[in-house]
């Protein structure tokens, strides 16, 4: 056996707390190790070339890369092996960054830990065998959950590209929150018209099926062929979707959670959303005194909303501007922590609003009291360090975005993860903001965190193009990590068959052994753990690999 070990410095990230030189020297002397090298960035092109060269010149048959966590760069390093005509499943990744250099400070201890981790990889990889990726046919159709601006943009793109689109909306009408907004900043457009344009584009396309007042009641299967059950007003409907885009948006924060704001107790305390809907019908004196409260339901750890909702500062500015435009002599005061007018044109808008006469007071609002003459706001001006008490005719709460109500339902149906704020979690916050941990399921728009209209459209369409790229060919490759049976060892006890969730194990009455239906196997390895004689094994995770890994981690072998 000829194993090559490549230890990445990851710039500083690993080298900082792991003695990479010592490691590479250590493994040089190891039996079966042909190459042991450390390099500043193994993932870079020269790093990859180094691996390729070693494979080709030294005839490596196992490659161990000790670097970042395996979920990063997995495909890339596999490609390196493929290019050198080495089966990509003879690669073993060892995480010495996320699981070693970053989680400990002591160089000596980290180096020892990294050594053992690599050792574990080495021993485990010794049992690797070449595997072939499974090609599966995929259905060129997409299920889009949520008919808001994100979902509609995704649907528009995918249907235009000729993909079958199933658009599912819980409400009777498409359009989500955007439909209800009278004026979308900065487009200056009416939300309804934006939505109508999008719907118009979809109608008449044969490859679009829209289900309103519909929820998802069942979801099974795997990438490329998800079996979906819809609960439509006409009854249950089943369909097959190659991939899914979740775009279920957000739910507006309910200020009742903060009783000190007195919301719901007086008509003169309204939310930005209500203001948007009813601005024209508000009963106000000629010189109205208007207070706008920022960050209601955002940046508030006490109520479990530590995040910034991203859009509410602009919404607050919109209220201020509208009041000033309508009532020239109005007194409009915004109470804020930071004005986050970050979108394009936002800062200018902020300045303009200030110039129009909206006052901005950096303040902590302590409480709101109702009085017959008005609503009294008491708080502390954090710039001047003074407390104040002022009376207003109208208080507008700039409410934040909360996770969508169906987040947990969808997450558990589709087996995807929510983040700590209960929005959907992305695969990589920077580079894969639309992907989930599950192949073929994407997230778009505000359901993964607050976003404005532009960002939601970007998201919807960007996730759609990703999905399109996945399904376009009509087939895809999936991991070969499925179970197989050693018929010589199988006692035919059928325990694995009973346990298998995917019902992928079949019993042969003749031979009195079981076999695996490869297409159905999900690769969880339950059967492997159930079989007392290890007659059934999960490729890539067979017993002796894990046994040796344990042994190596404990330096017992």
């Amino acid at each position, binding site marked *: 056996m000829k194993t090559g070990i490549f230890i990445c410095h990851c710039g500083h990230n690993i080298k900082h707390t792991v003695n990479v030189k010592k490691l590479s020297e250590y493994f040089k002397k190891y039996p079966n190790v042909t190459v042991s090298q450390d390099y500043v960035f193994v993932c870079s092109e020269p790093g990859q070339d180094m691996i390729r060269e070693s494979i080709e010149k030294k005839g490596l048959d196992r490659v161990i890369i000790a670097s970042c966590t395996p979920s990063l760069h997995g495909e890339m390093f596999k490609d390196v092996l493929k290019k050198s005509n080495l089966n990509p499943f003879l690669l073993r990744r060892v995480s010495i960054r996320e699981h070693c250099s970053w989680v400990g400070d002591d160089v000596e201890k980290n180096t020892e830990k990294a050594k053992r981790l690599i050792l574990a990889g080495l021993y485990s990889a010794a049992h690797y065998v070449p595997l072939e990726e499974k090609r599966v046919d995929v259905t060129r159709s997409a299920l889009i959950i949520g008919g808001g601006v994100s979902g509609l943009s995704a649907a528009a793109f995918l249907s235009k590209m000729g993909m079958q689109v199933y658009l599912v909306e819980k409400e009777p009408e498409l359009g989500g929150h955007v439909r209800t907004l009278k004026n979308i900043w900065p487009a200056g457009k009416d939300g309804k018209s934006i939505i109508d344009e999008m719907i118009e584009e979809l109608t008449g396309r044969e490859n679009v099926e829209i289900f309103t007042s519909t929820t998802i009641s069942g979801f099974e299967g795997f990438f490329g062929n998800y079996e979906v059950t819809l609960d439509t007003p006409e009854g249950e409907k089943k369909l097959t979707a190659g991939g899914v885009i979740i775009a279920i948006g957000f739910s507006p924060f309910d200020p009742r959670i903060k009783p000190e704001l007195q919301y719901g107790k007086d008509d003169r305390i309204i939310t930005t959303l209500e203001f948007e809907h009813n601005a024209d019908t508000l009963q106000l004196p000629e010189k109205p005194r208007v207070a706008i409260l920022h960050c209601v339901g955002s940046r508030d750890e006490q109520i479990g909303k530590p995040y910034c909702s991203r859009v509410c500062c602009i919404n607050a500015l919109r209220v201020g501007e509208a009041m000033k435009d309508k009532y020239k002599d109005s007194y409009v005061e915004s109470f804020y922590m930071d004005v986050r007018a970050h979108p394009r044109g936002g800062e200018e808008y902020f300045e303009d609003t200030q110039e129009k006469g909206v006052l901005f007071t950096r303040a902590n609002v302590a409480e709101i009291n109702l009085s017959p003459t008005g609503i009294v706001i008491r708080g502390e001006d954090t710039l001047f360090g003074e407390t104040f008490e002022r009376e207003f005719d109208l208080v507008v709460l700039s409410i934040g975005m909360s996770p969508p109500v169906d987040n947990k339902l969808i997450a558990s149906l589709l087996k995807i*993860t929510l983040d700590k704020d209960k929005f959907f979690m992305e695969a990589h916050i920077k580079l894969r903001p639309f992907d989930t941990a*599950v192949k073929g399921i994407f997230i778009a728009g505000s359901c993964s965190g607050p976003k404005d209209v532009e960002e939601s459209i970007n998201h919807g369409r960007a996730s759609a193009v990703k999905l399109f790229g996945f399904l376009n060919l009509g087939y895809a490759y999936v991991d070969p990590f499925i179970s197989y049976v050693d018929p010589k060892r199988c006692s035919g006890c059928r325990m694995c068959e009973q346990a298998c969730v995917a019902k992928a194990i079949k019993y042969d009455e003749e031979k009195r052994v079981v076999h695996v239906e490869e297409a159905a196997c999900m690769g969880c390895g339950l059967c492997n753990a159930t079989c007392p004689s290890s007659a059934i094994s999960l490729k890539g995770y067979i017993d002796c690999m894990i046994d040796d890994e344990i042994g190596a981690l404990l330096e017992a072998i």
Partner: protein
Amino acid sequence: MLQDKAEKNPEIIGFACSYCTFKASEMAGSLRMKYPEGVKLIQVPCSSRVDPAFVIKAIFEGADGVFVAGCHPGDCHFIKGNYFTRRKIAALKEMFDAFSMKDKLRLFWVSAAEARRFIDKVTTMYNEIKERKNVREKN
């Protein structure tokens, strides 16, 4: 074999499901949260892949503790896998209990987002085992 370990720092082997705990551990790493270097993970596709034999093996090869960590019940990527894990590991814990070493084996549910929880779980386990180990060694 159990007795001839001299050093005071425990060795803990954790079996981590790829879809949740392992992700959480990655996240913990990228958030630079710290946990003792004695905790080492073995990645498995699902907690149900963990054969109790692995746990037994780890213990008798010198681990001071072993944990099996998977998705919260009901959240399994493989639909039901972790329910089986729960039964098997609970049974194994009972078995360990019968040999007065219940503290050596733990079962955690940690979702992919719960980096903090992961850290808390493993650190608590480590510290408790360390404490017990050192008390034992003094006696």
